[in-house]
């Protein structure tokens, strides 16, 4: 009986505690994260801790184990690389290196800043750089970025401050590759040579922050690295990354002040709603170069007919998609190379116009002797690019059928089945998206146009292949620009793909948060040190 009474007492107390908690103060404590020791950061004031909420996942904090944005966001703030992308631009500038240069077309040499150390005090020298790059290749983790270094033949240290990269063939974008996660420098005394280091505060780098606490899929706590010797200046006293499961909870958390910045990925509907809540949050937009596009399999009917592909290109209304489906959170895209990157053109606008032209679509089909309406099946996936893809392709179907020239059947499949089917010639037309490895036009051309592209759509234009090889080895920037533009013009004529839109970077922040706009550039590098709070 006593045990029962005890149990009953404990149960009642616990329930009452929960109820009391539910009815107590209506303001969540985290509504003002950073409160306590830090004071307002007005000019000369104390810096505050900032909380970032995101639905991105972290695959690995070890640079050898990740090839995804969620992991790289942490890595870019914990590690240094030889080179980095200057905030607000797509320019490559030195980071741990004092300078890098081409010795010849296949040899790239970097000299390190003297006196660098990792956050634990170990020296960062040329041997550490070589070790870091080599272990990415050696470990070759299934989720890792080793494929980015496939153009590298060898890497070697010369003395303690010089690193020499030898490439298999001329590759003008190699400096960009060194700014990705594949180029991050780790402490050889901490990271094993042949396997990944488990994620946690043991991940030692020389970047702006150190990782002081990490709970997978829940939270990463970053504190300033006292041994950092780079030129980036902190606008906060630390950063917390809070991992969320869904955009819906992310939106609620930024509304309630539980997170200071909600970035990646709020839905277009959520963004539109947050834009109206001006007393609680502000929506910050910046350049983004993530793209969505339609791919044609040029070996399958009806997409194998050039005229059919061109007629589709004449019929699509990108503005309607951007405004009606995405509430203006994306921008119409008229080349596979998004606006904002050097060399980007508007090749599809030049070739097919900015608005639909059913008359020209009809003419091109008639000239090719194709009977209308053309039956075409377009595939999309709800499980990789978000449920809004369904709305996007419903709109595309509406636009194509509005011309009277097409009868469109929409089909969808889960990503796993979808991504296996499209390279195997099972889809005549299908949706895909691209997230950049590095902000250079080559990353938007070579993967798509070189011998059928990574999606194996059988498009083959030897002239484009030659131009791609030339631009990758080109040392003359002006000549390279011309080659990039030529590729886009040729591809627009052949229409192996139709670019649809490029995404803007969008974040919702508390009203007192500053600096998010400074880090929004085509590199997608989230520079936590630029974000402050007053």
């Amino acid at each position, binding site marked *: 009986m006593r045990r029962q009474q005890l149990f009953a007492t404990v149960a009642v107390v616990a329930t009452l505690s929960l109820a009391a908690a539910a009815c107590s103060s209506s303001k969540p*404590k985290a509504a003002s994260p950073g409160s306590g020791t830090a004071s307002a950061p007005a000019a000369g004031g104390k810096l505050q801790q900032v909380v970032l909420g995101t639905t991105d996942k972290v695959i690995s904090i070890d640079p050898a184990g990740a090839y995804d944005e969620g992991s790289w966001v942490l890595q870019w703030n914990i590690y240094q690389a030889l080179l980095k992308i200057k905030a607000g631009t797509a320019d490559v500038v030195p980071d741990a290196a004092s300078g890098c240069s081409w010795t010849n077309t296949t040899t790239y040499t970097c000299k390190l800043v003297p006196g660098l150390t990792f956050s634990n005090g170990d020296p960062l020298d040329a041997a550490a750089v070589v070790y870091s790059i080599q272990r990415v290749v050696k470990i070759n983790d299934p989720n890792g970025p080793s494929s980015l270094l496939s153009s590298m033949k060898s890497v070697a240290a010369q003395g303690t401050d010089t690193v020499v990269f030898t490439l298999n063939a001329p590759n003008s974008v190699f400096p960009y590759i060194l700014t990705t996660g594949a180029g991050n420098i780790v402490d050889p005394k901490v990271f094993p040579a042949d396997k990944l280091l488990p994620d946690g505060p043991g991940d030692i780098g020389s970047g702006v922050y150190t990782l002081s606490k990490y709970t997978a899929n829940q939270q990463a706590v970053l504190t300033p690295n006292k041994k950092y010797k780079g030129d980036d200046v902190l606008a906060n006293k630390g950063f917390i990354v809070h991992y969320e499961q869904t955009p819906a*909870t992310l939106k609620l958390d930024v509304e309630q002040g539980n997170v200071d910045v909600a970035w990646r990925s709020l839905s277009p509907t959520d963004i539109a709603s947050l834009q109206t809540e001006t007393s609680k949050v502000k929506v910050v937009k910046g350049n983004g170069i993530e793209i969505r596009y339609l791919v044609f399999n040029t070996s399958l009917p009806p997409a194998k007919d050039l005229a059919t592909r061109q007629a589709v290109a004449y019929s699509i209304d990108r503005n309607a998609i951007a405004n009606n489906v995405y509430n203006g959170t994306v921008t119409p895209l008229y080349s596979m190379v998004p606006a904002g990157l050097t060399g980007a053109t508007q090749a599809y606008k030049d070739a097919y116009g900015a608005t639909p032209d059913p008359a020209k679509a009809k003419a091109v089909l008639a000239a090719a002797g194709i009977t209308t309406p053309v039956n075409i099946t377009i595939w999309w996936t709800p499980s990789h690019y978000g449920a809004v893809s369904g709305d996007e392709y419903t709109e595309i179907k509406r636009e194509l059928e509005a011309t009277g020239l097409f009868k469109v059947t929409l089909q969808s499949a889960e990503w796993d089945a979808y*991504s296996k089917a499209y390279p195997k010639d099972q889809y005549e037309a299908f949706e895909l998206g691209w997230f950049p490895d590095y902000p250079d036009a080559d990353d938007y051309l070579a993967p798509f146009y070189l011998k059928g592209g990574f999606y194996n759509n059988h498009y083959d234009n030897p002239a484009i292949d030659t131009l791609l090889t030339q631009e990758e080895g080109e040392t003359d920037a002006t000549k390279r620009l011309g080659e990039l533009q030529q590729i886009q013009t040729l591809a627009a004529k052949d229409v192996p793909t139709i670019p649809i839109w490029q995404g803007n970077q969008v974040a919702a922040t508390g009203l007192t948060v500053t600096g998010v706009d400074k880090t929004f550039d085509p590199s997608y590098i989230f520079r936590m040190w630029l974000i402050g709070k007053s």
Partner: protein
Amino acid sequence: MASSGGSLRRYALTRLALVIPMVLILLTVVFLLMRVAPGDPIQAALGGKLSPAQLEEKRRAAGFTKPLIVQYVDYLKQVFSLNLGTAITDNQPITTVLKVNGAATLELSVAASIIALVIGVPIGLRAGRLRDSAFDAGGRLFGIITYAAPVFFVGLLFQLVFSKWLNWLPNSGMLSPIDQAELPTHTHLSVVDAIWDHNMSAFIDSLKHLAMPSFTLGLLLCGVVIRLIRTNLIQTLKGDYVEAARARGVPEHKVVMRHAFRNALVPVVTVMGLQAALLLSGAVLTEETFNWPGIGNQLVTYLNNRDYTAVQGIITIFALAVVFISLLIDFVNAAIDPRVRY
């Protein structure tokens, strides 16, 4: 007496022996289901990024191209050596996932069970005692609704009302980001860690975060409790010993609490034990709705990423937990009911 003890021992040994094929079947089903499902972790993560040849090379490097039987034997070896491996998609050892996320699920399950009992037992008792009254009808209706209402729907309603409209409670998570960052981890149970650390602010914060998920899951369970208590109480109130107690002039509330309720609890305990499976499946949905960092939430993430190793590891532990609880209930049943024997 010796015969009874021998019979009980034989029963226990037989039940234990049956666990082995049961577990083997479970492990095999888990393994096969993961292989039958389309896709793999490489395809899920890098499918839109690399060419088919590069994907195949990565698949080979990860061992996914090995014959199925070889993968199966490797899997069994891992399970029986208590090495559940490392998740492919986030590089976390499965034992760490079970420890960290399992603690969150435990915290939620315990809180939900307490709520289920605190709400369900009094309603069930009163409904049984006042059979066919308005309270009984209301109690039964409440029980049916809470049992039938989808967990995610109830959860979303709670979020809308208590978080979005009233702003009383945080909508998701186990702790506020700042508290979570500052609270040292001892047990991965946020309430316990806050008490351990004498951190009142974190304690209140953890209770606030626990309130909505535990009520959501607790309501699901309390429907079962209400109906069980009511039905069994009605049966026991018909017993001769209850009539005898009443005839001796024992007050009605004592008749109910001391005589009828205690006897009515025996089948309730048995069935509640079997609700462990319901609790775990409910926890998956509750965690997903409230972004609660439990094992169910993690399982959904791994399933979406086709992470064979992680899903196998977690489901194996889920299955073993249910098998263990069933076994325990069988033992308890056999101990209290002499008719249960082989």
